[in-house]
Protein backbone atom coordinates (compact mmCIF):
# COMPACT_ATOMS: atom_id res chain seq x y z
CA UNK A 1 0.00 0.00 0.00
CA UNK A 2 1.41 3.40 -1.02
CA UNK A 3 -0.10 6.79 -0.27
CA UNK A 4 1.53 9.84 -1.85
CA UNK A 5 0.40 13.43 -1.18
CA UNK A 6 2.39 15.64 -3.52
CA UNK A 7 2.53 18.83 -5.60
CA UNK A 8 4.18 16.93 -8.45
CA UNK A 9 2.46 15.48 -11.50
CA UNK A 10 2.67 11.75 -12.17
CA UNK A 11 3.40 9.52 -15.14
CA UNK A 12 0.97 6.60 -15.35
CA UNK A 13 3.52 4.20 -16.87
CA UNK A 14 6.00 4.87 -14.05
CA UNK A 15 3.26 4.58 -11.42
CA UNK A 16 2.11 1.23 -12.84
CA UNK A 17 5.70 -0.04 -12.89
CA UNK A 18 6.07 0.79 -9.18
CA UNK A 19 2.66 -0.72 -8.47
CA UNK A 20 3.53 -3.97 -10.25
CA UNK A 21 7.01 -4.15 -8.68
CA UNK A 22 5.46 -4.16 -5.22
CA UNK A 23 2.94 -6.86 -6.12
CA UNK A 24 2.76 -8.42 -9.57
CA UNK A 25 0.36 -11.31 -9.06
CA UNK A 26 -2.79 -9.43 -10.12
CA UNK A 27 -5.49 -10.89 -12.31
CA UNK A 28 -7.09 -7.43 -12.39
CA UNK A 29 -5.81 -3.87 -12.07
CA UNK A 30 -8.22 -0.91 -11.91
CA UNK A 31 -6.96 2.60 -12.57
CA UNK A 32 -8.80 5.87 -11.92
CA UNK A 33 -7.39 9.27 -12.84
CA UNK A 34 -9.22 12.44 -11.78
CA UNK A 35 -8.40 15.61 -13.73
CA UNK A 36 -9.18 19.32 -13.57
CA UNK A 37 -12.33 19.75 -15.67
CA UNK A 38 -11.82 22.53 -18.24
CA UNK A 39 -14.91 24.52 -17.17
CA UNK A 40 -15.73 27.66 -19.14
CA UNK A 41 -13.17 30.33 -18.29
CA UNK A 42 -11.44 28.34 -15.57
CA UNK A 43 -7.84 29.58 -15.31
CA UNK A 44 -6.59 27.30 -12.58
CA UNK A 45 -7.57 25.22 -9.61
CA UNK A 46 -5.93 25.76 -6.24
CA UNK A 47 -6.00 22.68 -4.03
CA UNK A 48 -5.38 23.22 -0.34
CA UNK A 49 -4.42 20.22 1.74
CA UNK A 50 -3.65 19.05 5.29
CA UNK A 51 -0.95 16.57 4.24
CA UNK A 52 -0.33 14.85 7.59
CA UNK A 53 -4.03 14.17 8.11
CA UNK A 54 -4.56 13.20 4.47
CA UNK A 55 -1.83 10.58 4.73
CA UNK A 56 -3.42 9.07 7.85
CA UNK A 57 -7.02 9.23 6.61
CA UNK A 58 -6.28 7.70 3.21
CA UNK A 59 -4.24 4.93 4.83
CA UNK A 60 -7.16 4.16 7.18
CA UNK A 61 -9.55 4.07 4.24
CA UNK A 62 -7.22 1.84 2.21
CA UNK A 63 -7.11 -0.54 5.18
CA UNK A 64 -10.91 -0.59 5.30
CA UNK A 65 -10.90 -1.35 1.55
CA UNK A 66 -8.50 -4.25 2.19
CA UNK A 67 -10.87 -5.63 4.83
CA UNK A 68 -13.90 -5.35 2.51
CA UNK A 69 -12.35 -6.79 -0.66
CA UNK A 70 -9.52 -9.18 -1.50
CA UNK A 71 -6.80 -6.83 -2.76
CA UNK A 72 -3.15 -7.40 -3.61
CA UNK A 73 -2.10 -3.76 -3.65
CA UNK A 74 -3.35 -0.15 -3.49
CA UNK A 75 -1.59 2.98 -4.72
CA UNK A 76 -3.11 6.44 -4.15
CA UNK A 77 -1.53 9.69 -5.31
CA UNK A 78 -3.32 13.00 -4.64
CA UNK A 79 -1.91 16.33 -5.78
CA UNK A 80 -2.27 19.75 -4.20
CA UNK A 81 -1.12 23.28 -5.11
CA UNK A 82 -1.95 25.20 -8.28
CA UNK A 83 -3.23 23.08 -11.19
CA UNK A 84 -4.32 24.00 -14.71
CA UNK A 85 -7.35 22.71 -16.66
CA UNK A 86 -6.76 19.08 -17.78
CA UNK A 87 -3.98 18.58 -15.19
CA UNK A 88 -4.06 15.35 -13.20
CA UNK A 89 -5.42 15.65 -9.65
CA UNK A 90 -5.64 12.11 -8.35
CA UNK A 91 -4.59 8.58 -9.22
CA UNK A 92 -6.01 5.44 -7.59
CA UNK A 93 -4.68 2.01 -8.62
CA UNK A 94 -6.11 -1.14 -7.08
CA UNK A 95 -5.03 -4.70 -7.84
CA UNK A 96 -6.74 -8.00 -7.07
CA UNK A 97 -7.15 -11.53 -8.39
CA UNK A 98 -10.63 -10.82 -9.76
CA UNK A 99 -11.97 -7.65 -11.35
CA UNK A 100 -14.96 -7.07 -9.05
CA UNK A 101 -12.65 -6.55 -6.05
CA UNK A 102 -10.31 -4.06 -7.71
CA UNK A 103 -13.17 -2.13 -9.37
CA UNK A 104 -15.31 -1.87 -6.23
CA UNK A 105 -12.34 -0.93 -4.03
CA UNK A 106 -11.25 1.72 -6.51
CA UNK A 107 -14.70 3.33 -6.53
CA UNK A 108 -14.92 3.12 -2.73
CA UNK A 109 -11.58 4.91 -2.31
CA UNK A 110 -12.61 7.62 -4.78
CA UNK A 111 -15.96 8.12 -3.02
CA UNK A 112 -13.99 8.58 0.19
CA UNK A 113 -11.49 11.03 -1.35
CA UNK A 114 -14.30 13.22 -2.75
CA UNK A 115 -15.84 14.07 0.60
CA UNK A 116 -13.74 12.80 3.51
CA UNK A 117 -10.06 13.36 2.73
CA UNK A 118 -8.71 16.78 3.85
CA UNK A 119 -8.41 18.55 0.49
CA UNK A 120 -10.20 21.73 -0.58
CA UNK A 121 -10.56 22.99 -4.15
CA UNK A 122 -10.75 26.62 -5.19
CA UNK A 123 -11.65 27.51 -8.78
CA UNK A 124 -9.88 30.57 -10.17
CA UNK A 125 -11.64 32.51 -12.95
CA UNK A 126 -10.52 35.84 -14.50
CA UNK A 127 -13.10 37.75 -12.44
CA UNK A 128 -13.74 35.59 -9.38
CA UNK A 129 -12.46 32.84 -7.09
CA UNK A 130 -14.83 30.17 -5.77
CA UNK A 131 -14.21 27.61 -3.03
CA UNK A 132 -15.91 24.42 -4.23
CA UNK A 133 -18.65 23.30 -1.84
CA UNK A 134 -19.12 19.72 -0.75
CA UNK A 135 -21.87 18.02 -2.74
CA UNK A 136 -24.69 16.12 -1.02
CA UNK A 137 -24.54 13.60 -3.89
CA UNK A 138 -20.86 12.85 -3.10
CA UNK A 139 -21.72 12.23 0.56
CA UNK A 140 -24.60 9.93 -0.45
CA UNK A 141 -22.21 7.91 -2.65
CA UNK A 142 -19.89 7.43 0.32
CA UNK A 143 -22.61 6.46 2.78
CA UNK A 144 -24.15 3.93 0.40
CA UNK A 145 -21.17 1.65 1.07
CA UNK A 146 -22.08 -0.99 3.62
CA UNK A 147 -20.54 -0.57 7.08
CA UNK A 148 -19.02 2.79 6.33
Amino acid at each position, binding site marked *: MDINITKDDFDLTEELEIFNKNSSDHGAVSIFIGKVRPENGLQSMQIDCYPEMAQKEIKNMAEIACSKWTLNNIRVLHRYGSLKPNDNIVLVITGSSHRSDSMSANQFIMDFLKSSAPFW*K*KEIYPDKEIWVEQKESDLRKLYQWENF
Partner: protein
Amino acid sequence: MNLKYFAWIAEIIDKREESLEIPSGIETIGQLIDYLSSIDEAYKKAFEKRKSIKFAVNQVLVNENELISKADEVAFFPPMTGG
Protein backbone atom coordinates in the same frame (compact mmCIF):
# COMPACT_ATOMS: atom_id res chain seq x y z
CA MET B 1 -1.49 25.01 21.50
CA ASN B 2 -0.72 24.61 17.82
CA LEU B 3 -3.61 25.77 15.61
CA LYS B 4 -3.98 25.18 11.88
CA TYR B 5 -6.46 26.70 9.43
CA PHE B 6 -7.31 25.64 5.89
CA ALA B 7 -9.16 26.86 2.78
CA TRP B 8 -11.45 29.90 3.25
CA ILE B 9 -10.97 29.81 7.02
CA ALA B 10 -7.22 30.41 6.55
CA GLU B 11 -8.01 33.24 4.11
CA ILE B 12 -10.34 35.03 6.54
CA ILE B 13 -7.98 34.64 9.51
CA ASP B 14 -5.03 35.38 7.20
CA LYS B 15 -2.93 32.64 8.82
CA ARG B 16 -2.38 28.99 8.12
CA GLU B 17 -0.80 28.12 11.44
CA GLU B 18 -0.04 29.67 14.82
CA SER B 19 0.97 28.75 18.33
CA LEU B 20 -1.27 30.29 21.01
CA GLU B 21 -1.33 30.31 24.79
CA ILE B 22 -4.87 29.29 25.63
CA PRO B 23 -6.27 30.37 29.02
CA SER B 24 -7.08 27.66 31.53
CA GLY B 25 -10.73 26.66 31.61
CA ILE B 26 -10.90 26.09 27.88
CA GLU B 27 -11.32 22.37 27.61
CA THR B 28 -13.24 21.67 24.40
CA ILE B 29 -13.11 22.67 20.74
CA GLY B 30 -16.39 24.56 21.19
CA GLN B 31 -14.94 26.59 24.05
CA LEU B 32 -11.81 27.26 21.99
CA ILE B 33 -13.94 28.64 19.13
CA ASP B 34 -15.84 30.87 21.59
CA TYR B 35 -12.53 32.13 23.02
CA LEU B 36 -10.92 32.84 19.63
CA SER B 37 -14.09 34.60 18.42
CA SER B 38 -13.94 36.86 21.47
CA ILE B 39 -10.35 38.06 20.96
CA ASP B 40 -10.38 39.10 17.30
CA GLU B 41 -12.92 40.03 14.61
CA ALA B 42 -11.20 37.83 12.02
CA TYR B 43 -11.77 34.67 14.08
CA LYS B 44 -15.32 35.79 14.78
CA LYS B 45 -15.96 36.17 11.07
CA ALA B 46 -14.26 32.86 10.20
CA PHE B 47 -16.28 30.93 12.78
CA GLU B 48 -19.62 32.63 11.95
CA LYS B 49 -20.70 29.65 9.85
CA ARG B 50 -19.89 27.33 12.72
CA LYS B 51 -22.07 24.49 11.49
CA SER B 52 -20.12 24.30 8.25
CA ILE B 53 -16.75 23.98 9.96
CA LYS B 54 -15.01 20.72 10.75
CA PHE B 55 -12.30 20.11 13.36
CA ALA B 56 -9.42 17.72 13.85
CA VAL B 57 -7.31 17.11 16.93
CA ASN B 58 -3.91 15.62 16.15
CA GLN B 59 -5.12 14.88 12.60
CA VAL B 60 -8.23 12.98 13.71
CA LEU B 61 -11.70 14.31 12.88
CA VAL B 62 -13.65 15.15 16.07
CA ASN B 63 -16.76 17.06 17.14
CA GLU B 64 -17.10 20.30 19.11
CA ASN B 65 -17.25 18.51 22.45
CA GLU B 66 -13.82 16.92 22.04
CA LEU B 67 -11.50 17.60 24.98
CA ILE B 68 -8.26 19.38 24.08
CA SER B 69 -4.95 20.02 25.85
CA LYS B 70 -1.97 22.35 25.40
CA ALA B 71 0.08 19.77 23.52
CA ASP B 72 -2.58 19.18 20.87
CA GLU B 73 -2.57 20.24 17.25
CA VAL B 74 -6.07 21.57 16.50
CA ALA B 75 -7.16 22.15 12.89
CA PHE B 76 -10.18 24.03 11.51
CA PHE B 77 -11.45 23.51 7.97
CA PRO B 78 -14.57 23.43 5.75
CA PRO B 79 -16.16 20.19 4.51
CA MET B 80 -13.70 18.36 2.29
CA THR B 81 -13.78 18.51 -1.52
CA GLY B 82 -10.96 16.28 -2.71
CA GLY B 83 -10.66 13.76 -5.52
